[in-house]
């Protein structure tokens, strides 16, 4: 997968008119980190260590 640099769809320089910009690298990094966080939370909740398990 290629990533675009500064010349994305917001610059309006016309260099990439006609095709959608590819996903920026930071979005892929964020997506992976976010998925890891959600999975970690789900595993902790399933194993009884997540929030809500200390209810009196």
């Amino acid at each position: 997968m290629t990533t675009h640099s500064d010349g994305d769809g917001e610059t309006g320089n016309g260099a990439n008119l006609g095709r959608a910009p590819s996903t920026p690298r930071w979005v892929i990094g964020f997506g992976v980190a976010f998925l890891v966080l959600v999975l970690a939370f789900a595993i902790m909740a399933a194993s009884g260590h997540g929030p809500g398990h200390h209810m009196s």
Partner: protein
Amino acid sequence: MTMGRGLRKLVLTTHISCSVGWFGATAAFLALAITGLNRQDAPSIGAIDLGMRWIGWFVLVPLSSASLLTGLIQSLATEWGLIRHYWVLAKFLLNVFANVVLLLFVQSLGSSSYVRSDAPPIHSIVALLLLLVATVLSVYKPRGVTAYGWRKQQERRAAASRRWQAEQVDANVPALGVPEGRRARP
């Protein structure tokens, strides 16, 4: 649907105030959580538990909900949109996740075993990191539009171009590039 300038500023101010308040309340919660780790006497644990419950239910939950709601209004009622720019979408996902976890988390408040455990400081630190990432996204607004956002941009540009051409025809302005001498005199 777009908001007027005044209303937009009002919603933005509310969103920033709630988000900053959420950050500050989480930091205060972290201070209480760390204090709870070092105290063993019942009166101190009771006071810390009470403080955590009040901050959780009456500060954190209202501020986080208001932050999510005003963020949604701000995105949907402006040109930014909710799913047009990756940074807006990323902030929305972070906010929803933090709200869900917070609502589960406040259920634990009121238990002395929870106050004495190492869970509150860990939860607070993770929450602070999430809020910090959301703040960085808001300030830096990293580039990148989604496929939907890109389509909308193209549509807007095409509409603006058509409007401009129509205005040129209406104003009877000669086409660009035609030498001055060859323009038809009125």
